[in-house]
């Protein structure tokens, strides 16, 4: 995003709409820190600029990665937004099977943003602990070596509002992976939100939940629940 300095009157209305505080008003003109800007377009979409001075510019590689991962209106493989179907359609796809758990590391969330360099630290942790990267995920498409978790070096300095790494692990390696991720958190210059996905048992119990309970690993009381209504037409 850039500011047309000719048009800008320095009113500062756009400033509070930037999730990563990339906009400052200097000498009565808005200035966008291009390193911090994730190209999410929130400032422009908010339609608060009285002079229409905020302008999207065509992005080329590698900067285009920012908008692909940060602009909510992005379409990725037919799914609106940058995410994937993950457990949302698991009743139809069977992506997460019994005996396995899904783990997602949502780098930069909530609202701190992350460089791909920080994100790579966590893909490397997953690679060391036998995790399978999810095929249909934009971050996986940036991994050039799944055995090490190495990300395409040309994009490491790009910054995204959030980048979601999704993997599957055998359920008996869930605790090991979660503990390794938490231990690696202090190497980061950002935050991540951590998710665990698992199919319920017939009696309503959940193997991942039991493992987390036993290990004394805290989780929120609120979560996402696929209620099993999906099926392919008979």
């Amino acid at each position: 995003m850039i500011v047309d300095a000719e048009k800008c009157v320095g009113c500062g209305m756009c400033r509070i709409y930037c999730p990563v505080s990339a906009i400052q008003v200097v000498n009565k003109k808005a200035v966008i820190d291009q390193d911090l800007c994730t190209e999410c377009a929130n400032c422009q979409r908010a339609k608060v600029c009285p002079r229409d001075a905020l302008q999207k510019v065509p992005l080329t590689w590698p900067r285009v990665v920012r908008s692909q991962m940060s602009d909510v209106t992005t379409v990725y493989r037919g799914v609106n937004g940058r995410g994937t179907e993950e457990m949302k359609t698991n009743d139809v796809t069977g992506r997460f099977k019994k005996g396995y758990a899904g783990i997602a590391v949502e780098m930069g969330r909530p609202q701190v943003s992350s460089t791909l360099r920080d994100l790579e630290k966590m893909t490397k942790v997953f690679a060391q602990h036998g995790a399978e990267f999810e095929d249909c995920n934009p971050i996986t498409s940036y991994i050039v070596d799944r055995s090490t978790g190495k990300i395409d070096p040309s994009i490491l300095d790009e910054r995204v509002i959030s980048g979601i790494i999704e993997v599957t692990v055998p359920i008996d390696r869930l605790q090991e992976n979660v503990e390794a991720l938490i231990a690696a958190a202090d190497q980061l210059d950002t935050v991540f939100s951590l998710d665990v996905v698992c199919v319920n048992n017939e009696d309503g119990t959940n193997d991942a939940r039991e493992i987390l309970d036993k290990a004394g690993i805290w989780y929120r009381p609120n979560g996402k629940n696929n209620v099993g209504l999906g099926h392919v037409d008979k």
Partner: protein
Amino acid sequence: MSHTLHREGSVESLKNDFVVLTMAAQGHNVEGSGPKFRRYFELARQFHPVNIGENKNTGALPAFDYDTIVNKTDDGCVCLVVFDDEKNLIGFLQALKKEDLGMSVVVSGLMDEVAACCEQVGLKVHTVNMSLGVFGKREKLVGDKEREITTMCGHGMITGEMVLYHVNRIRKGLETAEQASESVCKLCICGAFNPARGAKLFQAMADAPAD
């Protein structure tokens, strides 16, 4: 994408906050899903959702009216409906079960409460996604109270500064908590934001002594 998973707040405040999402599975049931999604929104209408939205062709309620969102919904949309009341959630789940649209449905909310609502209508939770919280440089996060509002847009489009700006305006009598909530709600184009809960949180922040 887990944009409805990491909502923060007390159990009490999360009790009346349910986001119900439906989407098709690529390669399985995308084709012909549009009419089913439109029916989904129609079924929801009688249970008084506080927000609805889809981010492919339109957006969410404050910016678009209900009929426009429904009419523009087509194959492959991701459709969200938000309730601030358990009874309405139960009613909607019951209606969905009866209608048997065949589309996957995910309810974000207190896990034990959602499981109990499912049980009441003869549904079983199939798969869960749990949030283990936030790790790393937590000092970079906005304040705890602001996050209760900002995390209702999981994509991070409602900023902490914006929340404080509106709290200030409520304190000065320039707007009501409801107006503040509706204003920030417009930035959440998927329709995941719960404006009823938002208004309560804004009011509580405005009523608290200023720092």
